[in-house]
């Protein structure tokens, strides 16, 4: 009982500013992700069922779900590895637990559950979506929902335990934060690799209904080695509920045995290699980057240089860059494959421009929020100095904006060249490359200041709000511009109508950006 009390206190009682809005947001996020996963799986199963009899459909679905859960488990495993270090080493709570007369097993259990919540929540959420679509499409018994959730918990125990074992061993080997940095780099590179793999697997074939090659596609995708992974055992448990030839005893046995084995292994490795005082190693890296600020500069430039310097000294910021490689490869893949497809050139051009926006927005979501989130004490400190708080906001915008605009312009120009666009598309893409980064940055600046006492995490409300709003705005703008371009090409509208509509959108975006900037400064001024 004591371990349960400790664990739940440490997860729920340490949250600041808990309110109903936060709870509601997370419930909505959970539902959104479950429905997203359900929609994807439902669409795919619908396509498969439309083309095959029940037996074949179950077979095809099993291949798809096998790959789907395999990718989920790999992504979840890699992101869990990133979380191991903060939970097991950086958290001051662990020092506190060591000061109490608490059994080491309870401390390990406490850390394990905390990591499990961080590392498995998304995996289980997506699996629930998949289970629901399976339940609806194949009229499986209701018990499959509970079995699916339970099976994904067991599978998650496996990968969380492996992540703990690997991290603790590597940290003990490389001594402290250097090991942590290496781990984050490895997992970020691998994560990018998997994003690329998913794109190379051409998932659009699955959603493209009526595609006759879907049967061949599924056959080619089938990967025999997957049967050795927990993802496959979850799939077997699904299938056992509709297919009498599949026995659920063995997958359950494997899941229970393997999760117990890995759990015990991680406990043993923790006992043998874990040292609480692992916090050395960053000092040499820091000293390599010299502090060099021109004292004759104005305060905005000094603040900008300071931000740049701090970002350069924090190695974690550069590890984030690995995450963009995957998206950039998707952009390049689209250039080569989609630009050659006849009939949809305009749509694919705007789709790939959407990828450019995605790169810009995700760069901001990872780097901007990472650098300027949860800086309450910094703002209070800056308020004691004779500087304007608008300079703080301007410095951040000036630091990121040129980079964002150059990146967007460059990628959009490449896009234009590959898709052989007309002059009007060139004009609006250049405008998009300038105005969207301004909109994204000012919005991120404002959102980063609305919950300043919390620490940064991708799944916090401000970052999620930014992700949703930037996604929606980008999507609607590109759909509008795509449609208007098509209407212009078909002579349905004239040049005046085309440009006046776009100018109105740009004006609106600039006004909203200005408001975000003003609100951001106001938020900082109100920071107590």
């Amino acid at each position, binding site marked *: 009982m004591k371990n349960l009390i400790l664990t739940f206190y440490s997860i729920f009682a340490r949250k600041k500013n808990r309110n109903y809005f936060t709870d509601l947001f997370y419930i909505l996020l959970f539902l959104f992700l479950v429905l997203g996963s359900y929609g994807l799986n439902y669409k795919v199963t619908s396509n498969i069922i439309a083309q095959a009899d029940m037996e074949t459909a179950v077979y095809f679905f099993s291949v798809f779900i096998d790959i789907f859960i395999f990718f989920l488990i790999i992504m979840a495993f890699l992101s869990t590895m990133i979380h191991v270090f903060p939970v097991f080493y950086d958290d001051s709570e662990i020092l506190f637990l060591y000061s109490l007369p608490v059994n080491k097993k309870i401390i390990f259990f406490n850390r394990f559950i905390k990591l499990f919540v961080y590392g498995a929540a998304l995996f289980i959420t997506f699996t629930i979506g998949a289970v629901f679509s399976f339940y609806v499409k194949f009229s499986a018994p209701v018990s499959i929902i509970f079995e699916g959730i339970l099976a994904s918990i067991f599978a998650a125990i496996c990968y969380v335990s492996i992540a703990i074992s690997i991290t603790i061993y590597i940290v003990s080997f490389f001594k402290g934060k250097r090991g942590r940095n290496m781990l984050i780099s490895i997992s970020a590179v691998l994560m990018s690799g998997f994003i690329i793999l998913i794109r190379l697997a051409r998932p659009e074939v699955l959603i493209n209904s009526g595609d006759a090659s879907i049967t061949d596609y599924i056959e080619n995708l089938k990967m025999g080695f997957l049967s050795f992974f927990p993802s496959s055992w979850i799939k077997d448990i699904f299938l056992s509920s509709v297919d009498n030839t599949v026995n659920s005893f063995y997958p359950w046995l494997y899941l229970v045995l393997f999760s117990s084995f890995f759990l015990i292994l991680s406990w043993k490795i923790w006992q043998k290699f874990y040292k609480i005082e692992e916090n050395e190693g960053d000092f040499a890296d820091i000293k390599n980057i010299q502090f060099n600020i021109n*004292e004759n500069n104005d305060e905005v430039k000094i603040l900008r240089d300071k931000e740049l310097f701090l970002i350069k000294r924090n190695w974690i910021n550069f590890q984030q860059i690995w995450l963009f490689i995957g998206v950039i490869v998707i952009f390049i893949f689209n250039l080569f494959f989609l630009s050659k497809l006849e009939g949809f050139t305009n749509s694919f051009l705007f789709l790939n421009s959407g990828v450019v926006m995605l790169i810009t927005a995700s760069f901001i979501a990872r780097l901007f929020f990472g650098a300027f989130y949860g800086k309450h*004490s910094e703002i209070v400190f800056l308020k004691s*100095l004779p500087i304007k708080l608008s300079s703080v906001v301007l410095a951040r915008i000036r630091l990121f904006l040129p980079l964002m605009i150059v990146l967007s312009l460059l990628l959009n120009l490449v896009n234009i060249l590959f898709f052989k666009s007309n002059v009007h598309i060139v004009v609006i893409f250049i405008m998009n490359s300038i105005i969207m980064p301004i909109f994204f940055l000012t919005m991120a600046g404002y959102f980063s200041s609305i919950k300043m006492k919390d620490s940064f995490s991708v799944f916090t409300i401000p970052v999620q709000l930014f992700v949703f709003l930037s996604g929606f705005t980008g999507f609607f703008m590109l759909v509008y511009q795509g449609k208007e371009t098509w209407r212009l090409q078909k002579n349905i509208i004239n040049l005046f109508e085309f440009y006046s509509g776009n100018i109105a959108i740009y004006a609106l975006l600039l006004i909203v950006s200005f408001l975000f900037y003003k609100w951001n400064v106001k938020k900082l001024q109100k920071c107590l």
Partner: protein
Amino acid sequence: MIKVDKVSFSVNDKELLHNISVEIPSSEITVLIGENGSGKSSFLKLISGVWETKIGDIHYSDVDFKENMNKVKEQTGFLFENPFFYESLCGEEFIKLVCNLRKNKFNKDKFNNFVELFQIEKFVDIPVFELPKGVKQKFGIISVLMHNPKYILLDEPMNGLDPVSVKILKEILINEKKQGKTIILSTHILEIAEKIGDRVIIIDKGEIIFAGNILELKKEQNNDVLEDIFINLTGGEKYKELLSLI
């Protein structure tokens, strides 16, 4: 002189300071004392311009506080109770940055002099996140004094300092006072108030219950021990009740 006139301040409907009025003379050391959460830090944050209030007025003798708050901040050095640092900067780099943001040239000799005084030479080029609490506090104090401020506001400056450094800080403050600086510091160590303080402000539950010369206070209360006076003024009966719990 700093004049605080009928100032109140609330956060989320909780009143931290209520109808505060006090005059703080120049070239003196004023010591703020009060229980935890009594409003000492809030008072310092308000007069330094970190927090702003709509109720009441704050006047600086030579600068219009409301119209030109940055001018006040240029002449002020404020040490927070938990000093802020950019953790990946070294102590010297942080102080250089603060000087630049204050539009002051970083005076290396002055910095070295402080470093020598506080005996932290070996910590100068170590990132702040690696430093012990007391050393961080010393760098915080140096960052406040480097630009030769006219007003020195220190929120519990002795936190984490070793006895030698406490003694040195006291000497530094006395020296600054001799140069005409106005010093306001909050502390729980009443001996500091007695040793270096010219005036004392006692804050209790967001209200000033005494502000004046320490000697006058002792005379008025007919007691030579500041600790006893403080306990009597902030609720002697409550203290007796607490003692009975031991």
